[in-house]
């Protein structure tokens, strides 16, 4: 989780990723942020995030994103 928080903080240092629950719904992360994030996550965790996975529920909070990574790691 720390690794993920570090990636997120590098992207937007002004956001409280530990507590924020509406990263997508509130427009904190936009589509370009999401792609930058996916590139970083793919490098760090060696998982493949597909277009199907890019839904608000998976990106609205750091925990949701971490859950997605864990799920993908298990699948792969």
């Amino acid at each position, binding site marked *: 989780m720390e690794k993920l928080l570090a990636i997120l903080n590098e992207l937007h240092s002004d956001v409280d990723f530990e507590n924020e629950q509406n990263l997508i719904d509130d427009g904190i992360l936009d*589509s370009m942020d999401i*792609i*930058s994030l*996916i*590139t*970083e996550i793919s490098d760090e965790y060696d998982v493949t*995030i597909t277009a*199907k996975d*890019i*839904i608000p529920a998976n990106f609205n909070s750091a925990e949701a994103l971490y859950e997605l990574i864990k799920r993908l790691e298990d699948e792969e």
Partner: protein
Amino acid sequence: MLFTSYGFLFFAAALLLLYYTVPKKLQWGLLLIASYTFYFIAGPEFFPYIIATTVTVFLSALLIERNAVKQSEYIKEHKEELTKEQKKEYKDKQKRKRLTVFVLCLLVNLGILAVVKYADFFVSNLNGVVDAFGGTGNLTFISLAVPLGISFYTFQSIGYLTDVYRGTVKAERNIFKFALFVSFFPQLIQGPIGRYGALSETLYSPHRFDTKTVGYGLERVLWGYFKKMVIADRILVAVSTMIKAPAEYNGAYSLLIMLFYTIQLYADFTGGIDITIGLAEAMGIKMSENFIRPYFSKSLKEYWRRWHISMCSWFREYLFYPVSVSKPMQKITKFSKKLLGEKVGKRFPLYISTAIVWFATGIWHGASWNFIVWGMCNWIILMVSEEFEPLYKKFHEKFPRMGKTFAYKLFCVGRTFALVCALNLFDCYRSVADTGRVFFSLFCAKNWNIFVNGALLELGLTVTDYVILACGIVLMITVSLLQRKESVRDMISRRPYPVRFAVWYGLFLIILLMGAYGIGYDASQFIYNQF
């Protein structure tokens, strides 16, 4: 049948009456009949196209879903016997089958769109290239009439097919219900591009007559007609006069063209969408919003989150994301990181994906170079501002109070509005050369006296027209400002009945008395009809 025609008003009124008269379970069937009647009136020759899209997408979605169900049943049944590798092999095989159906259906539907909308553009460019190399480019133009709303219903159908392929929505099993989703007449001509998941929740369900719902819907329809007929169609006269003669109307006129066209486009498109959403709302059907006060945006990026939302989100979800995370793009990322270093290399694929999206957005608007250049200009501005983002951040860290001041916010809104006005010029002229000439003539303009010498009254508008326009624009801005706090219709509904009555009839009378029709005017097509 134009939204602004008497025929449409009669059609919509008769439909509303019937809609709440027939048994509720027949309501969606009635809507299908109405939608097909609407499409038939628009041109019976267009019918085969929409039927082809409906049938191919409907069947492909069913095949894809059936295969997915079969796969999970097989895996469940043979859970114990199959090894992990065998399961993976089986899943991959089934996935390939689904992908084949998906791609074939895409090719058929995008093929239809390409032939009717882009074939002549391709032929014209091919002839041009042959001519340029000394040959004689004489390929014949196909000259097919573009079916009404083809870009909208094709994209809507592809969105549905992709959702079924991804497993995020269940395939529709009733072809007539699906036919209604594709052809629902209010959204057919200029969107919004609906999503099956959201739209199907209210499109097929029975709706009982509810005074508030019908009243709210009709109120919005009225507001849409106000924007279209009082503002857009009035200012259109001046815009048409100026863009017809770029050799005459340039220099200081460029400023007027950009400003007037941007107002016209907003009033026309949002007005049309208000009529669409309002009419659907009056029938209890909830459609997605297409605009959130776009001209109040503080950056171009924000503007594209608030303008034509359904199209932008379509491109984002069904093109930008799949392209960005695709295997070829991952390979490009690895390669560009090696070549350009970690920091720049990582950004490179983002540039490619956004360039593809903006090229597609440009050409979606029309088979013409001006739209492609318009798309690429948007892309360049967005990418440049993206790269300057760290600089903006540093600036705001140094001057933290400045970003919060009203003056700075107003400056950002004004800057974005000016940028949008300039980009809209591509849409006016439909020619890159004319757009460039008119735009750059502004910087060496010597005719600034047009604002005081009465030249503005030679554009087809009288002093009264300008006064009506000014009042109309002030009203539009006021409504937008009020909307930031809460729905204006909610505000009106809390007023005493005589006040509400005065607002409705006042608006109705304004449209009747000040709408741009009669001698010298011709209620025009909505700008987005042609896309």
